[in-house]
Structure formats: structure tokens, C-alpha cells
């Protein structure tokens, strides 16, 4: 069928598809309003450009901020081993992050069990030594509501140095080395309950 289509017809169809696609893409690039509270929809999808009470930062801003020794908080999800994954094949999940980052997988999930949310705040309290002004860079990947939510949680709890880094590890790895990190022991022990 397709092969029989005259080249001229195809030449006309391709720009039409491109136009349509451009329209659809442009539609999806429209600004997303900040939800009033945590985002409880799908975790993967377009996020707002802003996070009230937090500063939005890019790679260059994070580079500058490193001198102030911020808490680098990676909330990207951990790989889940598929239930019926074959025994005889290697399963070796790894998570690469900004060197020195604390990885708290799933800390941006919402809704979250109240006890687990408290353990998140407790762990952040420990990591910042109770200093609510300490710079905290919260990130995962682009189009990840997890980092937005985790930042929102911190802002709501009165942290004033929150930086949301939406490009996250994808933006970072393009210019800098990454390091393998393990889930934060203080957080994962709690979340395993």
C-alpha cells in the first residue's frame, strides 16, 4: 500500500504530519500551573516551570552553588526487579547521580503514608543538622514530579534554601561525571517498613 503511494502524495503527507505534530507538541509545551498542594497524578509528565518558595536552578547554577556545600537530594526511583525476571540472567541495577548526592528513592511520591513522610522530614532534619536555611538541591530527571513534590514538601515544612533542579541527572551527566550511589540507609530502612 505504502509503496504504491506516489512520491508526490507522500511529499505532501509528510509536512502535514510534521505540522500536526508541531501543533500537538506546542500544545503539550504550554505552561502547567503549579498545583496548590502535592501532585498526586502520574509521576512522569510535564512539570510546572516554577515551584513557589523554591528557586529553580539549571546546571550552571548548581555548579556555582556547589561551593556552598548544599545538600544534593536525588529522589529518582530505584529500579524494580520484574517479578518473572529469569534467574539465569544478570540483574545488576545501578543508580548514577551527582557525586556526593544523597539518594532517597521515592521521596517525592504522593500520596505518601504519614509515617513515611515524617521519616523523610526526620532524615532531612538530620542531614541539614536542623538548619532550615541550608541550601538543598532537589532533583531526579526531567519531567519528574517526584523532585517537584519533594521540593514542595521541604518548602511547606519551612526550609528556605530549597533549589529545584528540573534537568536533574540528565542535565548534569551531559557536562559532568556521575557517581554510583546507594539508597540512603537512614531513609530506605524506614521506607522498607
Amino acid at each position, binding site marked *: 500500500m505504502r509503496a504504491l503511494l506516489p512520491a508526490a502524495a507522500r511529499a505532501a503527507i509528510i509536512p502535514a504530519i510534521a505540522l500536526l505534530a508541531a501543533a500537538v507538541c506546542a500544545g503539550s509545551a504550554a505552561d502547567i500551573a503549579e498545583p496548590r498542594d502535592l501532585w498526586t497524578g502520574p509521576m512522569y509528565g510535564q512539570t510546572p516551570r516554577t515551584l513557589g518558595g523554591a528557586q529553580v536552578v539549571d546546571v550552571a547554577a548548581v555548579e556555582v552553588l556547589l561551593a556552598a556545600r548544599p545538600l544534593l537530594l536525588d529522589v529518582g526511583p530505584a529500579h524494580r526487579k520484574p517479578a518473572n525476571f*529469569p534467574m539465569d*540472567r544478570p540483574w545488576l541495577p545501578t543508580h548514577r547521580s551527582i557525586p556526593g548526592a544523597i539518594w532517597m528513592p521515592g521521596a517525592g511520591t504522593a500520596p505518601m503514608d504519614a509515617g513515611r513522610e515524617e521519616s523523610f522530614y526526620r532524615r532531612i532534619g538530620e542531614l541539614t543538622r536542623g538548619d532550615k536555611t541550608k541550601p538543598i538541591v532537589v532533583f531526579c530527571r526531567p519531567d519528574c514530579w517526584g523532585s517537584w513534590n519533594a521540593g514542595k514538601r521541604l518548602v511547606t515544612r519551612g526550609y528556605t534554601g530549597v533549589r529545584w533542579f528540573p534537568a536533574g541527572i540528565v542535565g548534569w551527566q551531559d557536562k559532568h561525571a*556521575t557517581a554510583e550511589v546507594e539508597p540512603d540507609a537512614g531513609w530506605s530502612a524506614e521506607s522498607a517498613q
Partner: protein
Amino acid sequence: MRIARIWRFAFRLALLCAAPAAMVLASDRAGAEAANNPERASRWKAISEQIFGDRKIEPSAALIRLDAPQRAEDAALVPVTLTMPDKDKIRSVYLVIDDNPSPLAAHVTFGPAADPSSMQLRVRVDTYTNMHAVAETTDGRLFGTVAFVKASGGCSAPAGATDEEAMAGMGEMRMRFAQGADAGKPTQATLMIRHPNFNGMQMNQVTRNYTPVRFIDKVSVSYGDSKIFDLATDISLSTNPVIAFSFLPVGKGPIRVVTSDSNGGRWEQSFDVPATTN
């Protein structure tokens, strides 16, 4: 047919939408990490010990070449070409994507009807990673090569707009033969298999549940009674796998493909070899 068209359209749309993001990434300066830092080397050691035990892997540019885009346009569809110039010495080839959670993407074992000089696959890449290709020679030695690939997010990218759509026509296969092949010479062919290859890491955006894993585990291709290759694979293979290979004009009858998946699916299809290539 209608579903096929919708699927193709959705796929192109996804590519077009992804293009601006790819361009942003492409504008960076050089300076990303090199392929050979100590941490990556130690990960490769751990992976290769699991796959190859204590067998030694000798570096070789003569026996194995790995071509992958340095910067992939779509991390869920990264084309990889394995080239084995000294084809008569090759028994099998392994493709490893170091930083994927299931690093062994493919193991291809060649049969008497194969021309093992080249093989192409499309894979998912989770994060910027080293890829290794390891060729096993007929005398049991291993020769490896490495490439660094910049792509990320390929493991969580949904297979289709909905799971049902991604699964439509599952197991359907097509084969395209290279035109103008000379009689008596190896012929190139491309096998396309319709299968979502769900890796268990893709979230259904409506239900917010992870789509259960369902992936192709074996593809076996024969020319008459003569084996071309067996592919053992899992979740690193892209949705709707495309496998390009070469075969020798030694078989009689059609080319037969048997595909199976992790959930007991089994599909079989035969393809007549065009007369000019016989």
C-alpha cells in the same frame, strides 16, 4: 492495518516531540566523562564476571567492532551494529549495556547458515553508559570492545499510548530482504517483530501501575534445516524489535523464525527467500 497505521503515526509523533529535547542536549560543549573511568571499569568487571566467569576477554579491534550513536536521538530505540570482520572465526557475540539494570542485552549464537560478519539490533538505554560487545571465537576465546553512549530514559519510556495498543498484533513478524543480492553470496535481511517488550519499568500513565513485564526471550532463525542464529535476550531490547542479519545461500526452503516470550507466548512464521538470492 488501521492499528498499524496509528502505531506508526504515534511513533513518528513521539520522535518529533522528542527532537527539541535532543537538540538542546546536542548543544552542549564537550567535557562529559570519558568511557574509561575507574568506577565504570569496576562495574564492567562485576558484570563480566557474572556473564563470563573467569574467562579472559582480550581487547580486539580486528575481531569485533561496536557502532552505536555517541548521542542517541531516542533512548528507547538506540541502533547498535556489531561487526565481526573475521566472520569464519566467530561462534557467538554478546552485547552488554553496562548501566542498564539487566546489562546483558543480547547473546547471538551463529549457526552454519549465518554470515556472522554483521548484526544490528535496537536497544533501550537507561542512562549514559558504556556498551561492550564481546565476540566468542570458535576456539572458545573472547574478544571485546567498548563504546560510550549518551542516551537516557529509554527504560521508563512507555511502549505505546496504552498497553492494549502496544500489545496489538503481538507476535506478528515481517522480513525484508536486501535487493539485488548476487546468487551464491551472503544476503542481508531485516526481521521485524511486533511485541511491546514490556520491561516492568514503564508506568501506565492512566492507572499509575507498572505494566507487568513481558519480553521476548528467544528468537531462532533457520534457513530450511540449517540454523542462521539463536538470539537470547530480555528487557533491553526495544519495543517492536528489529534485527538485521546476514545469511548464506546454503539452505533450502523458506526462512523460519520462531519467537518466544517470558509469558509463554510462541510465534512462528516462514518467509520465502526471493528467487534472485537463491
